[in-house]
Structures are given as structure tokens and as C-alpha cells.
């Protein structure tokens, strides 16, 4: 995945993928070390199929990658995907920094009588 060329669909996918606490927890875990899908399924009060579905959403958003090893499917974090989330947040941060600077400019003007 070329992170510099994330299109709107890619961005939507990323944000939707992370808008769920279970999926965020999966991302957190597999970024620190690899897990099998069944190993992940054992951690949550939901079915294997449900966890598999969460992993598929994360995989489509390029946040994790999955690889077959014997009978197991091994999930690990995709650093490029996470990096693009950080990049989006950095852009958002810059938007807010500029907003704060513009507020300061407005406040520096002559006091108005309202």
C-alpha cells in the first residue's frame, strides 16, 4: 500500500475500521506481537466467526496482515497502515493548530463592544 496516495475510500476504510473497540484492541495486540485468529477469538466474548470478520475489516483497511501457517491464520500489525492513521491525525492536528492561531489573531484585534 502506498500511504502517500490514500484516496477517500482508503481513508473511510481506515476510520471505519478503527471505530470499534474490539478492532482497536486487536490492532493494539497484533502490533506488539503476532496472534492466530483462534488465539484472538479466545480473548473476546464473541464467536470465532465474529472475530474473523473483525480481522477481515482490519485487513481491508491495511491495518493488519494475515498469513496462513499450517492450520492457523496468523495476524500481525501492518505498520504502513498505522502510519497512515498517524499521518491523518497529524494533518488534523495541523488544522487545529492553525485554528488556534486564527483565534489568537481575532482576540488580538481591538476589543469590540458586544
Amino acid at each position, binding site marked *: 500500500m502506498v500511504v502517500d496516495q490514500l484516496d477517500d475510500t482508503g481513508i*473511510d476504510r481506515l*476510520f*471505519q475500521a*478503527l*471505530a*470499534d*473497540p474490539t478492532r*482497536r*484492541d486487536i*490492532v*493494539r495486540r497484533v*502490533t*506488539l506481537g503476532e496472534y492466530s485468529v483462534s488465539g484472538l477469538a479466545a480473548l473476546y466474548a464473541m464467536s470465532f466467526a465474529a472475530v474473523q470478520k473483525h480481522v477481515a475489516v482490519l485487513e481491508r483497511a491495511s491495518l493488519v496482515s494475515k498469513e496462513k501457517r499450517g492450520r492457523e491464520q496468523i495476524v500481525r*500489525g501492518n*505498520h504502513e497502515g*498505522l*502510519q497512515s*492513521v*498517524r499521518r491523518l*491525525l*497529524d494533518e*488534523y*492536528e495541523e*488544522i*487545529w*493548530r*492553525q*485554528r*488556534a*492561531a*486564527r*483565534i*489568537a*489573531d*481575532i*482576540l*488580538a484585534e481591538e*476589543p469590540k463592544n*458586544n
Partner: protein
Amino acid sequence: MTVISTTTNPETLSLTLVAEFDADVERVWQVWEDPRQLERWWGPPGYPATFEKHEFTPGGEAGYYMTTPEGEKPRGWWRFTRIERPHRLELDDGFADENGSPVEEMGAGHVVVTLEDLAGRTRMTVLSTFDSEEQMTQMLEMGMEEGMKEAAGQIDSVLASHAHA
């Protein structure tokens, strides 16, 4: 320096910005309360915002559009969920269609603004999340806050070493 700190967390999709202004709390509150002042800072240069609706009361809604250099007018909506003049303001925000109706599938973000008095100056903290507050609260209750912080730090170091690889 206006902006004191910013913190982003990719796992909670959240941004916290702390800024300090040389004006009292009442004055800073006005830049949110008065739509004419609000539209002077909300949009970036070249993308002016126009607030057509600004019901500044709990449960009230705001509707605005930005005008792009190409002449397009993307729209957004706000819903004020909490207003405690002049110290705290909370709102949900999202994208709107050309009629100003929320585009549901795009979801909603949540913004919490607090203003603190620093002996005549004002500290403004903006917490912006791309997720529901309920989910965030749930996570904090599950005691994951520390784990999240730690994981975020680890992600950063992983990303840093990856970048140098």
C-alpha cells in the same frame, strides 16, 4: 506561544490540543458563540466557512458550508450536546449532504472544549474524537487507558525503527 501542546492517539482516533490566549474566558467563549467570529477561524485560508444556522443551546444544531477555491460548497453539521457558559462546550459534528442533512454513514465526531481562567488569560483545551464518547468511556472503564498509552508509545517506537529500516 498560542498552542501549548497537542497529543494524538491513533488507536482512539483522538486529538487533544491545549492553547493559551491573551484574553479572558468570556472573550474566548465568544469566538465559539458568535457565528460571525466563528466563521473567521473555522475554515482555513481560502476555504471560508459560512454558518447558516447556529443554535447555541443544548440540543441546538449548527449548519455550515465551506467555499473551496473551485467554488464547491462542502457542508457540515454540528449538534450542541452540552453548553455551560463560559467554561465548557460539547458538540457532535459530521458531514452533511447538499440539503444540510447529516450523512449518517460517515459517522459523527465529538468535540469537547473547555476554557480555564489563568488569572485573566485563558487556557482552551479541545478534545476531538472520531468516535462516540460512549465507546471511549467504556474503554476507560475497562481500565485500558494506561494500556492504550503504553501501546501508543510502543507503536511510535515500532514506526520509528521501521522508518529507519
